[in-house]
């Protein structure tokens, strides 16, 4: 029992080290090169694969062609958010969009009003900060895709076909 858990721990640690090293390598590629595009393509595919633990189960149950004899019961207003409480977020997004548009009008790299990309670019000039940003971006993708296509969705499809 202890041997199995130790083996699992070693395997997980090895996977984590390999992923961190791969992220380090991907974050170190110079932009605008074929290697940069290849690294990002592989990263998107790897994140989609890592996040979709239930995707294989979903496909095994028919994927998009599966028959839904009975739609999964959804509580009323489940996952819905009313408009007024979201208004502050909309204002923040609208302000960001306005700043971005003004920055683009001024040429993108204006010293008075740079775009968000240019501001972030100053933070991404170092390999370490680029690596941390890359890991944060990948984690966001894994968390999002895992929530959409993860195990709960596969369970719901089983309910729907049953």
């Amino acid at each position, binding site marked *: 029992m202890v041997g199995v858990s130790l083996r699992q721990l070693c395997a997980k640690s090895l996977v984590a080290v390999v992923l961190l090293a791969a992220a380090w390598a991907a974050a170190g590629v110079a932009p605008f090169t074929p290697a940069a595009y290849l690294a990002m393509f592989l990263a998107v595919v790897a994140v989609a694969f890592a996040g979709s633990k239930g995707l294989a189960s979903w496909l095994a149950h028919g994927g998009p062609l599966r028959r839904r004899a009975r739609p999964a019961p959804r509580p009323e207003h489940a996952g*819905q958010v009313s408009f007024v409480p979201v208004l502050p977020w909309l204002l923040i997004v609208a302000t960001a969009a306005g700043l971005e548009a003004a920055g683009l009008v001024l040429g993108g790299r204006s010293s008075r009003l740079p775009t968000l990309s240019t501001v972030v670019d100053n933070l991404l000039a170092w390999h370490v900060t680029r690596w941390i940003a890359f890991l944060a971006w990948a984690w966001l993708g894994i968390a999002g895709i895992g929530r959409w296509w993860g195990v709960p969705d596969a369970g719901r499809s089983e309910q729907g076909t049953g």
Partner: protein
Amino acid sequence: MPGEIAWSLLAALAGCWELCCRRSRGRYPSLAKVCGAISTRLPGQIVLGVVWAFAGVHLFARYGFAPR
């Protein structure tokens, strides 16, 4: 410089509002909850996925300088 200050203020405002939302016990939705509500339908999932992929490609492949 004014632009950097404006962006920093906006980021700080978003961070403060996120904290307020998390302390409001569901009265105001956090950013994660808003994204969760958007992603309850397939079009929302596609939009969020495209935004995520675009952000990655834009930041790490199509913008900036070679890292030091």
